[in-house]
């Protein structure tokens, strides 16, 4: 029987397999950031262990970091301490670290692909669930906890129980104005926050093939919102073209051999998936979350469901609680709800194509009075490119500045956060209670919808702007 893409990559990384035990997988690249790691380094020190492969380990500062001024001291002493611990730990164990303000610094899942670290067929882990982003390259990339970080640092391997295979096939083409973000929100609304649990999702079909690499990253990024550890897309010519010439891509001497190998990374025709979902791309419109899980999403103009529509009493109570928290009225669409803040950024949507999309909508328009538009690029490279392309001038003319790179209001671990009761349209990946600050209300949207919302002052699609 044939193998799925995920099985091919998995099997190529089995260091040790024994009946009744999890597989021991080799890890090709281990990415680190300042949160979720200090305890792992403490553990290494306490046991007198070293880092097995510092050359396969890379750190960056992104979660706690300021986005307005990078040359000043971090205000919160605990955050400052964590960033300084990252510096100290990486120096002590010989790990390369990209620091705030440096050329390669940025959100860990943005700089991995940008540097060409995300090779098809490789295994990538990071102390962050959105590591799944890099599955867009046909790598097996997933988030791990702090104890596992310590394990990978010490051994460059990870014991993992086999995961099942799930196919999400997206047939047809996305209509004009409908983006990768709308697509993944629609997928999550369909499969639910737990639909992918215990599975690796492979995205396939015409609409996936037609996405750019950046769009594919947006889709794979939110695999974890569907309950899955990892999302993957088989590599193709777009993948190879994206990687060619990047700093950590194979050099000219090895390029052809690697591409020949990468071409073998696809699901065999006779391979079997444990679960399959099929979506018709042509029926999709801009999506928005109305509740407090990413699965509580709907087309922007659709009425929000009534709690009574849910037969399961537990589900009904959860929907009711979410609607009260979000202060929305069942039966009415969220389109038109006034917002206080619009956040464009996060590892889901902070790459150059996202910023170009935002600039297209903002061009010649102004941000509505009373709305704070925050544009935070995913990396310093993206920031520089936005400046080189003149996008920052469009942002400034509209009434918004281009900030420095970091997770910003997605993690809300720095000073960028909402105050209780504030409502935001946000390109991030999570809308949990308090996610963007205590009492915050987040509607997850695409960059285009976020930009249109900033101009309108209320939740709106670009097509709604006059």
């Amino acid at each position: 029987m044939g193998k799925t893409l995920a099985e091919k990559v998995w099997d190529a990384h089995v260091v040790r397999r024994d009946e009744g035990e999890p597989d021991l997988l080799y890890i090709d690249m281990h990415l680190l950031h300042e949160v979720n790691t200090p305890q792992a380094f403490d553990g290494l020190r306490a046991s007198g262990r070293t880092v097995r492969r510092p050359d396969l380990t890379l750190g960056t500062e992104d979660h706690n970091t300021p986005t307005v001024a990078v040359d000043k001291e971090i205000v919160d002493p605990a955050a400052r301490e964590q960033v300084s611990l990252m510096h100290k730990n990486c120096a002590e164990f010989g790990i390369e670290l990209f620091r705030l303000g440096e050329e390669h610094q940025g959100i860990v899942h943005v700089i991995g692909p940008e540097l060409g670290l995300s090779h098809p067929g490789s295994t990538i882990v990071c102390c962050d669930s959105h590591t799944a982003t890099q599955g867009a390259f046909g790598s097996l990339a997933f988030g791990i906890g702090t104890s596992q970080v310590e394990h990978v640092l010490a051994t460059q391997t990870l014991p993992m129980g086999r995961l099942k295979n799930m196919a999400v096939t997206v047939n047809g083409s996305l209509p004009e104005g409908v983006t990768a973000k709308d697509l993944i929100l629609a997928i999550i609304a369909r499969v639910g926050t737990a639909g992918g649990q215990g599975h690796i999702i492979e995205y396939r079909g015409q609409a996936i093939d037609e996405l750019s690499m950046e769009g594919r990253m947006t889709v794979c990024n939110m695999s974890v919102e569907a309950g899955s550890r990892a999302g993957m897309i088989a590599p193709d010519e777009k993948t190879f073209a994206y990687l060619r010439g990047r700093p950590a891509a194979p050099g000219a001497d090895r390029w052809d051999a690697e591409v020949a190998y990468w071409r073998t990374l696809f699901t065999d025709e006779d391979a079997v998936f444990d679960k399959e979902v099929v979506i018709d791309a042509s029926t999709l419109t801009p999506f928005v979350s109305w509740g407090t899980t990413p699965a509580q999403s709907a087309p922007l103009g659709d009425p929000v469901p009534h709690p009574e529509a849910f037969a399961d009493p537990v589900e009904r109570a959860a929907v009711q609680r979410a609607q009260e928290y979000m202060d929305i009225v069942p039966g009415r669409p969220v389109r038109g709800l006034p917002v206080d803040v619009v956040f464009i950024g996060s590892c889901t949507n902070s790459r150059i194509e996202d910023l170009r999309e935002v600039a297209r909508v903002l061009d010649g328009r102004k941000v509505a009075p009373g709305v704070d538009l925050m544009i935070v690029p995913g990396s310093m490279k993206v920031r520089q490119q936005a400046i080189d392309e003149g996008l920052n001038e469009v942002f400034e003319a509209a009434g918004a500045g281009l900030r420095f790179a970091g997770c910003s209001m997605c993690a809300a671990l720095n000073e960028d956060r909402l105050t209780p009761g504030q409502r935001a349209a946000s390109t991030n990946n999570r809308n949990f209670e308090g996610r963007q600050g205590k009492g915050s209300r987040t509607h997850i949207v695409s960059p285009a919808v976020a930009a249109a919302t900033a101009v309108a002052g209320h939740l709106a699609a670009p097509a709604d702007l006059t």
Partner: protein
Amino acid sequence: MEPFTVHTGVAAPLRRTDVDTDQIIPVRFLTHSSRTGFSDKLFHDWREEPDFVLNDPAYAGSTILVAGRDFGTGSSREYAVWALQNYGFRAVIAPRFGDIFRGNALTNGLLTVTLPSDIIEQLWALLESDPGHEVTVDLVARRVRAGELTAAFELDDNTRWRLLDGLDHIDLTLAHTATISDYEHRRRPALPSTALLTG
């Protein structure tokens, strides 16, 4: 890691689904850089609601949490596991868990017990009608017992063995260092290295 064999303690009914790790411990407390000191941060924002279950004195000192489906979805923050353990929880019982949370919990010796929704409903009813009722989580027999109720749960033999003996994953893997070196010798040489980024 502290071994887990048989544990009996007061159980708290958390009648909520989709309890993501942001609720278990809000992100603003993640700047703290140790594994301890999170007991008062557990469910921090919910504990400001007077009727939140852990504010009920009848459940004071509870060591078992009985929650709705999809407990521990969201961020891969091990802080969520540490906060539950710091508070005193030894086990969480729910119909379904977030994958990363479940892995983190079992690595740290916090037992996640998966039971069907109807059993959870029965447990909730029992714990709400008789607050302070004790529940036994028996990993040796892979059973949960509460009053008249007995329910079997599944956990793979390898994880069970590791928990019963309190074994550390890293020690187990380091016993195979030679096998790891063998793998490294046959690994594709063109895979990325940070040496390429810094010259």
